[in-house]
């Protein structure tokens, strides 16, 4: 803390931001710079506006540093910013639910971190978040401790060992085998590939000029379609797996989940960008074990926290994709139940067979319509008949399997302090929700459900997705749930 507060207790962001913010903007300008260098070979006039823009960006950064101030009073956290559009945001301290620190590589070089203070209020597009970009690691740690807990805590830094926390989980390199089973990896490679391609094209660079690429293209153009498809799939698969591995390592390097003495759960992770996510334990309402199809096939799972004010997504992740058994074990530790009695592993009460019928109808109907459409096209000679046969051979069994699996995963149980709900197939979800965190119930019954004697009971909560559905259970069970 190289800064002193003024009379009102107002503090500035770290002065090192004067160097980091322009550097960040310059990094962002690099693609434009490259484009300008390549395009600028002919007309020399483009240089001055580029430097003008850079100067303006640097100036804005300085201005932002000069105008941003924050302070923590006994009751509130306040943030002032802006010159033309002055903002004064003020959050009661007892509304603060999460404090996250993120340090991108550039920030880390200067020992800085971006502090995000979450309040869990989602009003009209505002996410109710205060962001301090950026403060020193020590100041971030001090604020984290001050804002989340009212007693003092031994200081620890973003990269160093957490002070006095109990470790609940840490990264095991054997878990890396789950990285290729995440679809995101493949998708991210696609995005990266597309981005690079576009950048090169914009720079007026023809990719097919590269000897190796040209050679590959020439070799492929002479081959049958099947070979081309297999080759493309192989390239995509290999790059996808590599991308997933890189992504996993970047996101989860040095992962530790700890329970801090100040009553927070804390996730530290990240190779280049370090993240530290803190979650007040009294805001925790339960956990969710997610098993997307691929991960499930490899006996893996993901673990997310359901907490008021943290919503869903990246910041609720408690664990990387890991073995299912480990996920359940950590879930038990997080929920403070004995490891052998993890609520998420409880046997669930099956729902009536009518629920299976509903799942079959829903899955098979679209498949049957698709098959019929292909068949009709065949009858009108718009298509040959084989697509219809292929669709019938693939879609119909697949839809039946999907429906049966969805039914098998469907269920609920009341396990001690928790309501456990199972659902899904492509992503199997097991939610363990603390019963004291349920703030209301809904029981809805459509015409078809009434005819089948079924009901959907929905537990309403302030955490996570806000509502967790126990779908298609019998009405008596639904009523029993609302009274439990």
């Amino acid at each position, binding site marked *: 803390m190289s800064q002193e507060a003024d009379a009102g207790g107002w503090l500035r962001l770290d002065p090192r931001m004067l160097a980091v913010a322009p550097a960040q903007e310059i990094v962002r300008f690099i693609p434009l710079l490259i484009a300008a260098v390549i395009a600028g070979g002919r007309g020399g006039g483009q240089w001055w506006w580029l430097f003008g823009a850079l100067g303006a960006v640097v100036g804005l950064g300085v201005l932002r540093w000069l105008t941003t101030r924050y302070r923590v009073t006994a009751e509130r956290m306040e943030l002032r910013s802006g010159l033309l559009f002055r903002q004064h945001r003020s959050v009661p301290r007892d509304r603060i639910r999460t404090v996250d620190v993120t340090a991108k590589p550039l920030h880390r070089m200067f020992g800085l971190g971006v502090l995000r203070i979450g309040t869990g209020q989602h009003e009209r597009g505002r996410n109710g978040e205060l962001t301090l970009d950026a403060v020193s690691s020590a100041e971030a740690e001090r604020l984290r401790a001050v804002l989340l807990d009212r007693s003092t805590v031994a200081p620890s830094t973003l990269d160093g060992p957490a002070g006095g926390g109990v470790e609940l989980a840490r990264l095991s390199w054997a878990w890396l085998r789950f990285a290729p089973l995440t679809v995101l990896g493949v998708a991210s490679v696609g995005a990266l590939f597309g981005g690079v391609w576009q950048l090169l094209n914009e720079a007026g660079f023809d990719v097919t000029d590269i000897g190796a690429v040209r050679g590959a293209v020439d070799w492929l153009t002479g081959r049958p379609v099947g070979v081309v498809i297999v080759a493309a799939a192989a390239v995509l698969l290999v790059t996808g797996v590599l991308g997933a591995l890189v992504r996993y390592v970047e996101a989860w390097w040095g992962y530790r989940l700890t329970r801090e003495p100040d009553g927070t759960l804390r996730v530290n992770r990240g190779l280049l960008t370090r993240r530290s996510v803190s979650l007040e334990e009294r805001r925790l309402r339960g956990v969710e074990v997610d098993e997307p199809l691929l991960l499930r096939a490899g006996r893996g799972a993901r673990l997310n926290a359901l907490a008021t004010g943290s919503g869903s997504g990246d910041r609720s992740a408690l664990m990387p994709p890991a073995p299912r058994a480990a996920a359940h074990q950590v879930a038990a530790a997080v929920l403070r139940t004995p490891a052998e009695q993890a609520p998420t592993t409880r046997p669930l009460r099956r729902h009536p067979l009518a629920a299976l019928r509903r799942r079959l109808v829903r899955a098979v109907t679209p498949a049957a319509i698709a098959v019929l459409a292909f068949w009709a096209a065949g009858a009108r000679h718009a298509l040959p008949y084989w697509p219809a046969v292929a669709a019938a051979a693939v879609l119909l069994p697949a839809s039946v399997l999907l429906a049966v699996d969805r039914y098998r995963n469907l269920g609920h149980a009341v396990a001690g302090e928790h309501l456990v709900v199972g659902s899904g197939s492509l992503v199997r979800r097991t939610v363990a929700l603390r019963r004291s965190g349920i703030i209301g119930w809904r029981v809805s019954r459509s015409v078809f459900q009434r005819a089948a004697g079924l009901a959907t009971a929905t537990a309403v909560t302030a955490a996570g*997705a806000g509502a967790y559905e126990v779908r298609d259970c019998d009405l*008596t069970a639904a009523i029993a749930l609302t009274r439990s």
Partner: protein
Amino acid sequence: MSEQTADPVAALRQPAHRVSRRAIVWWTVRALIGWLVVLAPATVAVLVVPQRPPGAVAALVVLVLLAATHTAVMPRWRYHVHRWEATDDAVYTQAGWLNQEWRVAPMSRIQTVDTERGPLQQLFGLATVTVTTASAAGALRIEGLEVRLAGELVEQLTATTQATPGDAT
């Protein structure tokens, strides 16, 4: 998880009060306006366009029949389903017609209580009371209450929730 009752529907605590009878008229008018928005342009199109596609008249007739059935059936059906009750512990609502929903929110979890009156509701002297909780998953709504009753309900709920400690999450 033990209760097994003979009539499960009755066991789902039926809220005690019906909404105002005038709500039937309100729902009818609302449905009529909604259908008018669809049917008026469709009718004009059928009458004006010289080369109408085959079956256009039949489609319009089907649409009109659908509108008539909906407008006749929906409001009365709704009136039989819609119910509400506020006890010392919780607020209960029941709503819908084809798809029905029953909701409960404990008093200790209620955050805000609002009333709202659209132009139509004002015309019929009705109001909607909205009870919100800390969840993002939607609020309890009691539609079609008499204005005076709605005001009393809001006062009662506000008083009860203020007396209940906690931050309602």
